[in-house]
């Protein structure tokens, strides 16, 4: 029967051989198990084939000659049946061992692949994720790994098993009767041709079905999403007519696909009956002419029953194996993506001042940080430079796609402790500036320095540890409120977490949640409002307690009370730190040390609130409401 599913069953790998070799390479760590797997499989197949062969001596030597004897000696039959039983038992054991070991191997390979993929995701550069949807990346973990699972756990072993068995049966058939074998081979050839023919016909319908299903899905999605519009425009009958058209299209193709998919079994099964019949008749004729005995015919007839089975199996497995290989190739592509490069050597360390006021490294958190700059030579003493939060952009240019420039020669500076507001319309480049500062993206031209150190010389993880981010789309993780806040700093104690929440003005509402700090945030847990999520994100940054902050104010409409809470929380968080804030609220902008008005990737105006108003330029227009920001 056709395996209906969302996967593209007709996908083919670009380079089949290379992918197969690489899949085989995945088996390497399981070497000794594989040997046992092969042994078990061989034993199982051999026993099965040989057991059937024993029918010949059973009949020829231990039943037929004894017929009509007055006092038959049945001990021979007992012996050979015991042998037969033993052979089958060994076969069963072999088959079992092979299956169990294979499960360990296949699940082990899947585990390894999943781990490698996830680890790779953690190290890929951000632009990688811009180039594709999350759905596409997720599909590597779901569809492609599932296809691999089916192939490793089912398709590949069955393939090997079927092939081995066919070869074994073929060999035994040759031993029993070359003439009858010729007949069987001819039939096999015909079956193979038929399978190919049917497969080609059915793939036509399968492809049609895939397309029709896609269209139907699109229609359903659109209608469900837009259901309110459909209703207020009284459009149900028209929508239904369209749906029915697509529905019928799916049915038509589906019926074709199912017909060709499920006709295979009865055709193959009954062709093997035809083979059985012809073999029986021809065998009978040969037997009458005394060139064949009854036992041989009995065994041979038994073989014809399972000679054709592998053909059906193979034909069914072929498509799923090929599409699984295509999935495997996509997985390998992901694993081959180049990782984020980091040539930075300067690290961030906790420091204290000794008696002379000199900086010394401290093993515990002191609230004072320094950059540890390794000496020029390996033996050279590392220099410690206090982290102050002095950030400068010199003539920085950048584009996301190497074509359309997003920032053009931006220069700006933030002195330690200053609050810099970035103002401008969507697409002006505000977020890009912060994305360059934490090195999510690499600049094309110019230089960014941090406490006088070129950004590229600082190790990325240390750079990011020194920057706190509160983003507009606050992302929280499944888990308790406390776990989410502790994400800022894993070693933070419960008291520290709660203190940070107080600072961010989040403590109040958290305590009103059903389980307070232990409330689960998840699909079926508590649903927080956008404003509350924002408060948690601020608290999370407060737990991290970084010297430099990047804030992206929320634009979405938040009720005035929560907004006041957020504003206060942000204000307290910003105290004493260098802050870059992408501002949407006037109050934030007004209290900044410097305001940068950005337009089309350039800084249009710079100054504090009064100075910019006096300028009567763009900022003035924004402020008086002639232009709108978002």
């Amino acid at each position, binding site marked *: 029967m056709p395996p209906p599913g969302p996967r593209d069953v007709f996908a083919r790998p670009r380079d089949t051989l290379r992918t197969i070799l690489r899949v085989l390479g995945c088996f390497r760590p399981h070497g000794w198990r594989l040997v046992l797997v092969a042994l078990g499989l061989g034993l199982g197949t051999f026993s099965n084939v040989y057991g059937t062969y024993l029918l010949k001596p059973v009949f020829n030597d231990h039943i037929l000659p004894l017929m009509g004897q007055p006092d038959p000696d049945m001990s021979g039959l007992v012996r050979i049946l015991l042998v*037969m039983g033993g052979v089958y038992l060994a076969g069963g054991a072999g088959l079992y061992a092979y299956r169990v070991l294979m499960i360990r191997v296949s699940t082990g390979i899947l585990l390894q692949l999943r781990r490698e993929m996830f680890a790779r995701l953690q190290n890929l550069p951000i632009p990688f994720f811009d180039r594709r949807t999350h759905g596409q990346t997720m599909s590597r973990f779901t569809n492609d790994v599932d296809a691999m699972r089916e192939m490793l756990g089912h398709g590949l072993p069955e393939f090997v098993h079927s092939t081995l068995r066919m070869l074994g049966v073929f060999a035994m058939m040759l031993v029993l009767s070359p003439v009858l074998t010729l007949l069987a081979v001819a039939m096999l050839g015909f079956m193979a041709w038929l399978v190919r023919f049917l497969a080609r016909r059915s793939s036509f319908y399968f492809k049609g079905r895939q397309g029709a299903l896609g269209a139907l899905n699109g229609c359903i999605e659109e209608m469900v999403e837009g259901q309110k519009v459909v209703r207020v425009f009284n459009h149900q009958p028209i929508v239904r007519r369209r749906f029915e058209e697509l529905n019928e299209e799916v049915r038509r193709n589906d019926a074709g696909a199912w017909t060709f998919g499920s006709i295979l079994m009865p055709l193959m099964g009954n062709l093997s009956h035809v083979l059985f019949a012809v073999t029986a008749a021809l065998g009978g004729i040969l037997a009458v002419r005394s060139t064949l005995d009854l036992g041989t015919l009995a065994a041979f007839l038994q073989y014809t029953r399972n000679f054709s089975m592998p053909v059906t199996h193979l034909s069914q497995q072929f498509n799923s194996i090929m599409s699984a290989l295509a999935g495997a190739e996509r997985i390998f592509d992901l694993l081959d993506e180049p990782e984020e490069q980091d040539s930075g050597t300067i690290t961030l360390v906790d420091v204290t001042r000794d008696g002379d006021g000199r900086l010394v490294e401290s093993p515990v958190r002191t609230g004072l940080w320094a950059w540890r700059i390794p000496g020029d030579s390996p033996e050279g003493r590392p220099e410690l430079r206090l982290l102050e939060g002095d950030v400068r952009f010199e003539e920085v240019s950048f584009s996301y796609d190497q074509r359309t420039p997003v920032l053009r020669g931006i220069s700006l500076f933030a002195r330690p402790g200053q609050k810099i507001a970035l103002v401008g319309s969507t697409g002006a480049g505000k977020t890009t500036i912060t994305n360059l500062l934490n090195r999510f993206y690499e600049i094309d031209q110019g230089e960014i320095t941090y406490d006088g150190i070129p950004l590229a010389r600082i190790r990325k993880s240390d750079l990011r540890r020194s920057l706190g981010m509160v983003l507009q789309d606050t992302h929280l993780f499944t888990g308790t409120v406390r776990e989410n806040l502790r994400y800022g700093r894993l070693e933070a104690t419960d008291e520290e977490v709660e203190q940070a929440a107080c600072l961010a003005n989040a403590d109040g509402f958290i305590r009103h949640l059903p389980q307070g700090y232990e409330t689960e945030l998840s699909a079926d847990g508590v649903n927080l409002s956008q404003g509350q999520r924002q408060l948690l994100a601020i608290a999370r940054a407060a737990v991290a307690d970084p010297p430099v902050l990047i804030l992206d104010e929320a634009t979405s409409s938040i009720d005035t009370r929560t907004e006041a809470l957020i504003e206060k929380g942000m204000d307290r968080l910003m105290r004493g730190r260098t802050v870059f804030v992408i501002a949407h609220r006037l109050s934030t902008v007004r209290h900044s040390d410097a305001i940068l008005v950005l337009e089309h990737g350039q800084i249009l105006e710079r100054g504090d609130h009064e100075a910019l108003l006096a300028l009567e330029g763009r900022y003035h227009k924004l402020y008086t409401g002639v232009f709108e920001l978002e």
Partner: protein
Amino acid sequence: MLKTLAPSLAGYRFVSWMASVTIAFEVLFEVTIPWLMADILDRGIAEGDLPFILQRGGWMLGMAALSMACGGLSARLAALGGTGFARGLRTALFDRVQGFSFATLDRFTTGSLLTRLTTDVTNTQNAFQIVIRMLVRAVVMLVAATLMAVYINPDLAGVFVVAIPVLAGCLTALALLAYPRFREMLRRLDLMNARVQENLVGLRVVRSYVREEFEKEQFFQAAGGVREWQARAEGVVAVEAPISSLVLSGTLVAVLWFGGNLVVQGWMLPGELVSFVSYIGQILISLMMLSFAFIGLVISKASVNRIMEILEQPVEALEAPPARSRPEASAIGPETLADGSLEFEHVDFSYSGNPRNLTLADLHFRIESGQVLGLVGGTGSGKTTLVQLIPRLYEVMAGTIRVGGRDVREVSLEDLRDAVAMVLQKNVLFSGTIAENLRWGSPEATLEEIGKACRIAQAHDFIMGFPEGYDTDLGQGGVNLSGGQKQRLCLARALLKKPRILILDDSTSAVDMATDARIRAALQRELQGMTVVVIAQRIASVREADAILVLDEGRVVGFGNHEELHASCPVYREACDSQHLGEI
């Protein structure tokens, strides 16, 4: 369950039955083959009767051909029946979803509805195919092959009295053992994938807090758990094949021993014994097929349940499919409502239906036909909920809403919704051209009418800016338009309905202030006599309204014009002040 699903089979009931009947015949023809073969061995070969051998061989070929014909026919019929059933199911689900009240619909996400209409239908279709073909085949085969065995030699058939229960017992036990393990594995797999999804969405948070190692550790743990349970679940299934083949071969050995004795003693012919061996295979394979069928049914059970959940959900009388066709309805539609006056009389509403958790409480106000009503209030104050009650997207809990002097519950839904146009907060355009989308409002609208509506909505100019103008194709969801452009199209679409009441739910939020002002001016100029209800974040947008309603936590805290409210309503004043100062 059958009662709910059966109607979906309408039109395909006969082919489905015939699929079962033909597959039964396939089996019946098939089981005669070994028996005919026994004749060849016992009479043909034993007596050297060549014509007899050829004759029986011909019989066998005939049987095989008949069996093949029945089998092929059954495959085709089952394909027709199964896919027809699936089609019927999809239609039933779709109708049901369209018939849901929004109170019901809100409980399902788009994704979950989509899964039900696609994957779950496919799984149910598979289950259906399993029942009409696999199950019938397995049962008929089991019975027929057993009967043949009994017919050939009743004493020897006694072996099956032991073999069948043993294998059936083993298979059942395995299925029972495997089921909870697979369920646990799938649960863990879902959790693990949810982790990946979360990691992707929260990518920037992970990176900025340098939590890559932490995330990896968590994932490795989840992945390890998945592997463990997968191995456990599949470990149980791995026993199945060896056990089946052991029972099969055990039976074979027993049959050869007892049968061998019978043959030697002359109670049975050797050919009969050979054919008996064939029946062993058929009987035990049919048992395994039964177990596969049951596993298949168990797997699809969850899907069937999810579909049943939708089909058994009551369609509220409110949303019963419109009886009349649309053009007819629009011809008499708005005329049934005298004018566009709007009146709320002590209206209570709750999404959960719980009187202690009201979203709107005791709303009481009236505006005259042709007036403009502004709605103001914070997030969650109930503005959107209020306007959705007017075209009865939701049903009031207590109190009455009157449009044109008539209780909305007394007007047919079609007439009511023809008279009330609504531009929603979330803009939805559908695949098709711009003109096609606009004609949702009025199927017969001429290009002039469309152009006029678009000019009012300030959409005409940008539409003409596209190379294909009104024939520009919008992708699904109208992706190639900006937010403001989409909003203007949605407005034009609503205007084309020429409604008595136009509801604008924050529907120009993405339009810049100057255009917004032009839209308001055009509306005022061109559409005298139409009642307009406006929800706005900017006080400026509702300042000029005839009346402004201030909502706070579902209650009316102020009603009047701008000056009155500014003087008397603290919530309104606060909002004015904060907007004056707090927003650029």
